[in-house]
């Protein structure tokens, strides 16, 4: 039986209320969906709630799943929509001030490809935190594409299915998003070009 057949069997068992099948599905997808939610929401509690809600929606509508994409891709789409709606709600009720980190305490070194040193690792850690914050400031369509590509590792075809857009659009969004974040890296390491 191929992957599609296995998935169809799993779906059928879930729809029939087989708890073992539910647990298997949750075990398979929960970490990935959580990382996607973290990429978009940036907070563990929020991401966990969104992940739980994603599974609830999946199980509510599983009987109507047509199989046009993989089950995971479909779940991703649900997760992204939930996260984006959640962010809109938060944005309306909260004012969040996000600023670029200054270079206090962070030694900026030249980038030397090769074996990472402990300093490089610390730098990457801080940079990673900074970039994830910057990611959440990008236009929403770029965020979703980048999260699915860079964090979840989906193929461009899967991302196109998850977002309901063409392959070319996905590639363009990922590339443009990466370019913007590359500039963020540059500013973080070197400072803005206009700084005196």
């Amino acid at each position, binding site marked *: 039986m191929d992957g599609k057949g296995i998935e169809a069997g799993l779906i059928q068992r879930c729809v029939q*209320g087989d*708890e073992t099948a*539910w*647990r298997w599905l*949750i*075990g398979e997808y*929960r*970490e990935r969906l*959580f*990382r996607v939610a*973290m*990429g978009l929401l*940036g*907070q*563990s509690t929020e*991401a*966990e709630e969104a*992940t*739980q809600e994603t*599974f*609830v929606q999946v*199980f*509510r509508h599983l009987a109507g799943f047509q199989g046009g994409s993989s089950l995971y891709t479909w779940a991703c789409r649900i997760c992204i929509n939930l996260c984006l709606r959640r962010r809109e709600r938060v944005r309306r009720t909260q004012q969040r001030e996000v600023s670029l980190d200054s270079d206090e305490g962070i030694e900026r070194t030249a*980038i030397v*490809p090769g074996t990472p040193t402990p300093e490089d690792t610390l730098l*990457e*850690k801080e*940079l*990673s*935190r900074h*970039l*994830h914050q910057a*990611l959440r400031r990008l236009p929403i369509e770029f965020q979703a594409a*980048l999260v699915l590509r*860079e*964090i979840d*590792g989906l193929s461009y075809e899967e991302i196109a299915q998850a977002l309901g857009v063409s392959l070319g659009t996905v*590639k363009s969004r*990922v*590339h443009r998003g*990466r*370019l913007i*974040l*590359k500039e*963020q*890296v*540059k500013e973080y*390491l070197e400072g803005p070009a206009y700084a005196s």
Partner: protein
Amino acid sequence: MRHERVQRWFSRAVDQELSPRQQQRFAAHLTDCPECRREYELFVLAHRSLARPEAGALSAGFTEELVARLRQERGQSLSTATERDAGRLRLIAGVAALVLLFLWGDRAHLLPELRSERLTSGEIEMRVTPWNP
């Protein structure tokens, strides 16, 4: 090779989608062009840093909490389905009862006519033969 074209290849290089010939040209340009090389290093760093997982993890009880919630939802949807089925059965029983009533009522209406026809027929009069020793 022009800088703009090389920089358009950054994503494809990171995704390992360049053909062998393109890879050669790309690498050759980066070797000769410090500006593009620097831009590409920053691009790779952004890509790598973003792939690094953020701090945060699902709570230990996540799965059990979720399963409990799904059981509750399932229990509610089961009740609804049972009520729907019971309603349908009641409807079918009601229609069946009406049909039977109609058929029975129809036949009952016919029975007295049949009885009266037999009484007035000659066959019954002939059955009553006078005894004549």
